């Protein structure tokens, strides 16, 4: 069934696939919550999965993060998307100043019909700004920290490689912040970084994302509720 959706593209297909994953077990790979047994008191352990939590994250992935875009649309494919008809700023592209961690965590875990996507940013949970101000003109990033004297050497005939792209082997890829690092488990990271948007839209990693997000939701739910937040995840 998952393969039947492979030729579909865009948000509708992604949502359809996620619903399918949530409802029928995710095709070729299991979608049970990630194992989170253990104890948080040691660095080598993993935290406990709160007893009784058996959450379904489908609603998290299908909820609207910003007008016209669901959370699933933000995650798949793993690209920054820019709509010139909308104001710039995450998730419409990514400004240097955007607090992407708190925004992403809110989108993944909170019920956005009850909380704004800025709910965690408003606390804030993480630092809300860079340590140096950004420049208002090119190159925009702040100058390097420390003393770095300009080179006095001049060149006109640099020895750039002329080898074809096929002579290089992929090491890393990145689009949206936090997708590869947070939603892809270690066992799949290298495979994920070797892949590309066509793999994403073919739902190659959706079962991994669904599984990992479910594990997160189960672990987070009690504390988020205690903090007064409504969750997007629902009981199975």
């Amino acid at each position, binding site marked *: 069934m998952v393969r039947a959706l492979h030729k579909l593209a865009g948000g509708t297909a992604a949502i359809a696939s996620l619903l399918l994953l949530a409802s029928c077990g995710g095709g070729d790979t299991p979608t049970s919550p990630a194992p989170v047994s253990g104890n948080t008191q040691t660095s080598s352990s993993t935290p406990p999965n709160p007893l009784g939590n058996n959450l379904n994250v489908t609603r998290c992935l299908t909820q609207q993060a910003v007008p016209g875009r669901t959370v699933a649309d933000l995650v798949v494919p793993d690209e*920054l998307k820019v709509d010139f008809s909308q104001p710039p700023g995450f998730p419409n592209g990514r400004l240097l100043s955007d607090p992407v961690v708190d925004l992403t965590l809110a989108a993944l875990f909170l019920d956005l019909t009850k909380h704004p996507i800025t709910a965690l940013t408003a606390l804030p949970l*993480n630092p809300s700004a860079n340590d140096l101000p950004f420049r208002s003109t090119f190159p*925009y990033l702040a100058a390097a920290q420390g003393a770095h004297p300009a080179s006095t050497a001049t060149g006109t005939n640099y020895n750039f*490689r002329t080898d074809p*792209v096929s002579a290089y082997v992929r090491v*890393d890829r990145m689009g949206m912040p936090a997708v590869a*690092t*947070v939603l892809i488990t270690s066992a799949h990271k290298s495979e994920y970084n070797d892949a590309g948007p066509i793999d994403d839209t073919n739902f190659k990693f959706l079962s991994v994302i669904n599984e*990992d997000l479910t*594990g997160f939701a189960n672990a987070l739910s009690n504390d988020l509720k205690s903090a007064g937040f409504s969750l997007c995840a629902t009981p199975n």
Partner: protein
Amino acid sequence: MLRFSRKMLLGGALAMALTAGVVTVGRQASAADHLDPPARTDPDVDTTPDKAADIADIYTWFTPTDLIIAMTFAGPQAASMPPTYDRDVLYTLNISNDADPTTVEFPINVRFGQDGAATGVQFTGIPGTTGPIVGPVESDLHQGNVIARAGLFDDPFFFDLQGFRATRSSGRLMFDHTRNFFNGQNDTAIVLQIPRSAIENGSNPIRIWGSTARFGGQI
């Protein structure tokens, strides 16, 4: 008081969740892309980490006239350390401007090279250009209305990674929003400014992702 309580509770919850799903190896998981994939770029996991090819972050935004793209890599690192310009790494900014998000209409490739002690950078495939942009690093390079630069910059990412790690190791809540792990640290980066007129395609969105590849295979 309520605000403080919510913050504390959230810190504990997120620490637990992040510990559950992220920190399974080494010191990775900055929530951007630094040190990921760990098996290739994290010195705590890989004895030959490919620092030069390790993407840290990618940013893109626009003004009424231009699209700006920045990709940081080879960091975060101490302010005393030099930039990383590796001749054997190919940096690519993959841009799609049609209705199919999986296609790449504009693969912008960036390479570094040497001429004696001088380091240069070459940008190819930038929309709005008629050929490669070549010049020294740490300089604004112009062709038409395109501006390109490669150089060392302050790491623009901000996140309490230290608190996250401390929480993981101690089991105690250690998040502190006044603490930014990336304070005082640098990345090497590529920054481009491209006229929107060279890249806009009707009402299609622009989609961007970055990739790195090493000549001859991973180290």
